[in-house]
């Protein structure tokens, strides 16, 4: 990528016998909002700390605007970081906290005052400059942390689970505010989270971390619709997985046999004949009908019995015991296909080939 603001090349971090980050390569375009999504211990925060300069990589290169960052200490990198618990200096007022990075850059006093006031009003805390961090609510502290990391106009902003300590309602509000700030300021942001919903809502692209590696990177829609690995399919949204062996790879689809079923699905990645693979299908892409009814030719179909139904208002969720597994089916209420089934009803679950993806066990 020519306009990459940040580039990681095969970055590794090894602590004794533990590999925390195992060869991460990624490029961030200017103005992009990229999320590092993964469970705790997947290496996303360590990767962030290496970009910030707080952790030294064991191997690999990190480049900011094409310049290697590795030899620079954190205080010479000019990268904004918002920490998980804000890390506001408790002995300084809000205004002093925000002025700190400017003072370190020897900005003139009058200009510091101006810029602090501007960024404070930007985050909606114009009248709070004289307060101490301990006199603010969690959401306000979060805004101050954001203001402090932005005020020196860094080319790159790193955020480490910045909303983790807030309640759900405030989280959603802050997500929108951060998104707006991102759009208005044109900042490049790397955002670490373990919350897939948060990543889906906010990001231009998401890098899914697992075991110190990036399993898949792509737009939210891309990851949701076309997961390449079992982990990604499972971690982002709800999914049904059927294990089997690949018996045929044809133009556009592949055939997977397992548990007495033969299923066809789009080839998600580089599925090869004879390997173990999974068919992944989203609950809302599956349909239910009476077992006797014919389905469109070529559709995947399996019969089973309803073991659970949950009414969700706009939709209804069924758990169907079929093909040796519990299949989750979500049907829109009032749609053409909607028929209410009860527990114990025999049903057929079916879906279109292009709505299912064949995925491998893990990234290569």
């Amino acid at each position, binding site marked *: 990528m020519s306009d990459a603001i940040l580039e990681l090349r095969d970055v590794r971090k090894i602590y004794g016998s533990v590999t925390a980050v195992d060869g991460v390569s990624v490029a961030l375009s200017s103005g992009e909002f990229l999320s590092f999504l993964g469970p705790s211990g997947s290496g996303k925060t360590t990767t962030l700390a290496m970009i910030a300069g707080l952790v030294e990589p064991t191997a690999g290169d990190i480049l900011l605007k094409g310049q290697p960052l590795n030899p620079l200490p954190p205080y010479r990198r000019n990268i904004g970081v918002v920490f998980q*618990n804000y890390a506001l*200096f408790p002995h300084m007022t809000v205004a002093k906290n925000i002025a700190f990075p400017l003072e*370190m850059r020897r900005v003139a006093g009058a200009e510091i005052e101006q810029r602090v006031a501007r960024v404070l009003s930007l985050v909606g805390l114009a009248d709070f400059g004289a307060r101490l961090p301990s006199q603010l609510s969690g959401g306000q502290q979060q805004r101050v942390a954001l203001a402090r990391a932005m005020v020196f106009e860094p080319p790159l902003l790193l955020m480490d689970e910045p909303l983790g300590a807030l309640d759900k309602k405030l989280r959603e509000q802050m997500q929108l505010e951060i998104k707006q700030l991102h759009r208005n300021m044109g900042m490049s942001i790397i955002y670490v989270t373990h919350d897939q919903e948060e990543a889906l809502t906010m990001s231009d692209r998401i890098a899914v971390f697992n075991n110190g590696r990036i399993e898949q990177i792509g737009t939210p829609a891309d990851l949701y619709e076309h997961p390449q690995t079992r982990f990604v399919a499972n971690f982002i949204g709800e999914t049904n997985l059927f294990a089997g062996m690949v018996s045929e790879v044809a133009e556009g689809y592949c055939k997977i046999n397992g548990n007495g079923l033969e299923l066809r699905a789009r080839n998600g990645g580089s599925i090869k004949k004879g390997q173990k693979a999974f068919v992944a299908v989203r609950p809302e892409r599956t349909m239910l009908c009476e077992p006797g009814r014919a389905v469109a030719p070529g559709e995947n179909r399996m019969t089973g019995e309803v073991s659970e139904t949950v009414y969700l208002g706009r939709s209804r969720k069924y758990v169907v015991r079929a093909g040796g597994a519990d299949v989750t089916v979500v049907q829109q209420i009032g749609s053409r296909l909607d028929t209410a089934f009860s527990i114990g009803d025999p049903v057929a679950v079916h879906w279109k080939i292009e709505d299912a993806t064949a995925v491998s066990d893990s990234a290569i």
Partner: protein
Amino acid sequence: MMPASVRTEFLWRGLRITISALLVVFLVAPMLIVVVISFSSAQFLMFPPPSFSLQWYRKLFGDPAWIDSLTASIEIVVPTGILAMVLGTAAALGLARSEIPGKKIITGLLMAPIVVPVIIIAAAIFGAFRIWNLNGSLLGFILAHTVLTVPYVVSTVLASLQMVDERYENAALTLGAPPWAVFRRIVFPLILPGVLSGLLFAMVISFDELVVSLFIGSPTFRPVTVQMWSDVLGDVDPTIAAVGTLLFLFSLLVLLLEALMRHAGMSSPLMGQS
């Protein structure tokens, strides 16, 4: 008529108050008696004094031996306190924030002067100082007292460092502060209450120190505690009570100051702001 349960409750309460009062008397009475005797008009140590006068304070401040030893004590206490504060703070920072091997052993060694019997330390210092020719010198006293008081500073600073989240330091680094600025602007203001209590403790310990001072003192240079010791061994008059009262007042003042500072440091995190 009181029910039995209320009566036993009443009895227990009375007993608790009595025991507490006796304990306080046991702890405080000797000091109070010394204070009272220091104002005695009698010619020797007796309690209660027949009447009051300031003669012993007059004698104290008129006797060059006492003046010299008080001066010596102050000459020792002030540099000792500052040296212990600087060294102890540096040691605590190193122990808390760096990844040096053998941290536990180093901490143990630094704390040793509190644990090892003073007489052993005194003998060791005396032996070493004989080689270096430091016995009876101001420098020798300052060095010896610093060894004895550094552990107090280390422990108070370590305690306050535990309250300083390492994320503050990381945040400051990413905001463009080089390590020295991180220390000056972030860490130091936050641990200042601990540093100052360490300083005050060090000064009180140094001022009260007798055993090591007995070993390394000389007839011409001796702190006030050694002067008191030799005075007690000779003919005892209430001057010793007057000196005792002064020492007591000094310790009381320092502890009061420390408590005040601690209180201020807790209620207002602004105290260290630059």
